[in-house]
């Protein structure tokens, strides 16, 4: 193996209240393709932000050596000057500008008087497009070409900056198989030209195909770095097993409540069948593909899946078609078919959805606790259109006490509460709407351990009262600790259903990383 092109030594990065990276080390050799694997929230993106200067030098501890020299980047431009270019999952192209304009955006080729040299721009753009194998006219607007080609334009843009180390964050997440294969082929070609590449991916087959080595992160720490040839041996299945074990080896602790049994009748509360949804903008892309599932009364059912698996999209589209373009599928609540075309219809049918993004979709941050709790059930608190404020106050005081929302009064502005308390407010809102089925999307994301276990207690209590709970989570221990059954999703499809007794982190992760071609 050649000498290291990049060395990141014991990088530690903390945000207020959280340690995102703890003593992470990463060595990328010159001219290799290096994959980074890890669960959601393992610290992959943060590490790349440190490397590319998004988190500037001084905001983290540890050191970075590039080509043997210590480097300290103030911003993205500084890292790009050294030839480190990052391509984000959400492409940073301007739709209405042409391919050529996008390639040289912020880096325009200038003529003698400082104006843009259009001839030079187009000539150079054509040459770069040739290198990435894109035959299109450089004057085509970005909005006229597909996502696969846009990805190639991003790489051409990187090449225009004399890239030495290319970082790709989930490059094939939005691509079909053909475009993915093309892209991976290009990355291999670039390797031949001496360009090193870091690729963040959930797709283990893909990593096995292109990567020379893999670094596994978990909970902000480096677990191990494997050379793919070393892990592969004769059996590819074995190497995937090895990576999965590294990704999931998280401790199962005992912060989950002993599940209280629901004694009532255990009929099916929620049935979703053949649910299919397309992307809201790109109608060619199927985001949720023929998903069917059931949840019984008193049952907690988990949905596991990595980023982009379509879990939130499934939940939001069932909840009043709040996401994407509905294509097909039926919903039944308590055995009766229901229409959930709008949110009020879904609520009336007895479905509640607690969002994963409470600040954007869950709360009115500038309003008070009591008004946030009452928002979904105002008509029930009103007589002839006038809200009974005393009733509203009594209700919210009750939740403040029972959910242990830490605030002096229910008139506190929600934006001033901590994440855990905000989450309790969102939960209170939907519990008070008294649904049959609660879909909880990442209910413990970004909140502290104490609040987490309180929320687990609340979920257990809901199930014990006979509610059906669908729990979406990226934390496998959480799913294993709380659920009766766990569905796994990958690329918009269900890839398995596992009973609590049989489920392990390994079996789940295997199903979460399963790809189309080797789906059983």
């Amino acid at each position, binding site marked *: 193996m050649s000498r290291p092109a990049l060395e990141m030594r014991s990088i530690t990065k903390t945000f207020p209240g959280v340690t995102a990276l703890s003593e992470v080390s990463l060595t990328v050799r010159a001219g290799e393709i290096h994959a980074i694997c890890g669960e959601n929230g393992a610290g992959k993106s943060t590490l790349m932000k440190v490397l590319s200067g998004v988190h500037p030098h001084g905001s983290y501890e540890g050191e970075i050596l590039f080509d043997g020299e210590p480097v300290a980047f103030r911003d993205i431009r500084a890292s790009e000057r050294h030839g480190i270019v990052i391509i984000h999952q959400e492409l940073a192209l301007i739709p209405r500008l042409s391919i050529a304009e996008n390639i040289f955006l912020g880096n325009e080729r200038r003529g003698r008087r400082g104006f843009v040299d259009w001839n030079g721009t187009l000539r150079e753009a054509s040459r770069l497009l040739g290198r990435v194998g894109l035959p299109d006219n450089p004057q085509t607007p970005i909005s006229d070409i597909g996502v696969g080609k846009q990805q190639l334009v991003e790489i051409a843009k990187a090449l225009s900056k004399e890239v030495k180390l290319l970082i790709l964050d989930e490059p094939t997440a939005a691509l079909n198989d053909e475009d993915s294969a093309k892209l991976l082929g290009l990355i291999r070609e670039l390797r031949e030209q001496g360009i090193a590449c870091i690729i963040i991916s959930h797709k283990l087959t893909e990593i096995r195909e292109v990567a020379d080595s893999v670094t596994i992160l978990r909970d902000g720490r480096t677990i191990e770095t494997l050379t793919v040839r070393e892990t592969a041996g004769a059996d590819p299945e074995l190497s995937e097993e090895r990576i999965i074990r590294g990704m999931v080896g998280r401790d199962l602790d005992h912060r989950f409540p002993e599940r209280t049994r629901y004694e009532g009748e255990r009929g099916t509360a929620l049935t979703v069948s053949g649910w299919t949804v397309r992307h809201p903008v790109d109608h060619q892309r199927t985001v949720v593909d023929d998903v069917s599932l059931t949840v019984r009364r008193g049952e907690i059912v988990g949905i596991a899946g990595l980023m982009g698996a379509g879990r939130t999209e499934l939940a939001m589209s069932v909840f009043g078609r709040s996401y994407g373009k509905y294509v097909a599928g039926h919903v039944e609540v308590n055995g009766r078919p229901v229409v959930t075309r709008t949110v009020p219809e879904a609520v009336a049918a007895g479905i509640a*959805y607690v969002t994963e993004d409470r600040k*954007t979709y869950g*709360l*009115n941050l500038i309003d008070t606790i009591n008004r946030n709790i009452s928002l979904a059930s105002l*008509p029930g608190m009103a007589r002839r259109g*006038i809200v009974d404020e005393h009733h509203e106050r009594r209700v919210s005081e009750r939740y403040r006490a029972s959910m242990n929302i830490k605030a002096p*009064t229910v008139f506190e502005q929600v934006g001033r509460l901590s994440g855990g308390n905000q989450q309790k407010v969102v939960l209170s809102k939907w519990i008070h709407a008294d649904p049959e089925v609660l879909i909880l999307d990442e209910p413990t994301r970004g909140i502290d351990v104490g609040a987490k276990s309180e929320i687990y207690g609340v979920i257990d209590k809901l199930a014990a009262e006979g509610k059906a709970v669908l729990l979406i989570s990226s934390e496998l221990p959480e799913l294993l600790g709380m659920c009766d059954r766990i569905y796994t999703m990958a690329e918009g499809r269900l890839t398995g259903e596992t009973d609590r007794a049989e489920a392990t982190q390994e079996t789940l992760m295997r199903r979460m990383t399963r790809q189309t071609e080797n789906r059983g």
Partner: protein
Amino acid sequence: MRTTATPPKDTTSPSGTQPPLQVLTRSVRTNMRQYGMLIALVFIVVLFQVWTDGTLLLPNNVSNLIQQNGYILILAIGMMIVIISGHIDLSVGSLVAFVGAMSAVMMVKHDMPWVLALVLSLLIGAAAGAWQGYFIAYLGIPSFIVTLAGMLLFRGLTQIVLGGQSLSPFPEGFQKIAKGFIPEMGPYTQYHNPTLLIGLATVVFLLLREWRDRKRQLAYELEVLPAGLWAAKCVAMTAAVVAFTLTLASFHGVPVVMLIMCALLLGLGYVMRNAVVGRHVYALGGNKAAAMLSGVKDKKVTFLVFVNMGVLAALAGCVYAARLNAGTPQAGLNFELEAIAAAFIGGASMSGGVGTVMGAVIGGLVLGVLNNGMSLVGIGTDYQQVIKGLVLLAAVGFDVWNKRKAGA
């Protein structure tokens, strides 16, 4: 105006015993924008009262002030609700002119009874609001664009309807909307009797409400003002209402416009605070996505907000036409800007979700007293514009600064 009608609802203080002063300052801080503007309003009134050697608060000038600003206050109330919902309406000035013109055509050209014409005018306003609301709520065209188009459209229609001419005169009854007072009754007492009764009723109403609120807050173990301060507040409120009542009663009494204003202030204030639809307006302005995911019918609510604005613009149009005693093509010029300024001075936020109907009235009064006071002391309209611009900037700037300091 009864600017004292907002009880300081302390919303953020932890319960427990605390020094009264601390309670007071925190209560003031949490309602800073509204208190700040109330204090500013009092300051401006005192300033011009001294500067004009007492002319500002002479009974006839107070009546005049109310009648001069009635239509702007009506617009400001509607505009406040539009801004709370996260939108803007640039068309209200033109709509004032258009409805004024239509009312003139109905009454002057076709001799329609004025009550019928008034009702039809309000319906025209509702239709205009529904027209704009449809594009904004159901087709998703930004309100800035739709109402900018409306601004041109209604101004043009006004000129078409009037043929470039002014139409007058209006029937007596119609003119009374803007210029009239409630009629005198009973024995001669030096004061206007019905006004005295209204003033007395207002005092009783306010004190009862204060007492009831305090009792409820105590029952819920919420923090209340210390008894001494509360008593002082009640006395101050009573004194303000009595002084104001006597001022009006020693002239012609309560102007009709003021009755309309008070009805709107109480009615729409109550709707925005206590009705489901009002809550939905705040929720939509505060976080549209979250409101929609909580089952708020965003399209319907937005539509209603613009219908309401249309009706209020029509009402303002009638009041203005009645005051001028003519429907003219140039009526209502720049009224939309005055109304928007009043709403922002009175505590609205550009991003929506914040503000009160009371705030709009206070903001409108700040502008109105400035206008009137500066005219009385002979400041030219050129400098008046400069000063009003600076006041708007200062009011919003102060709010931004205060919020940043509070770290909210």
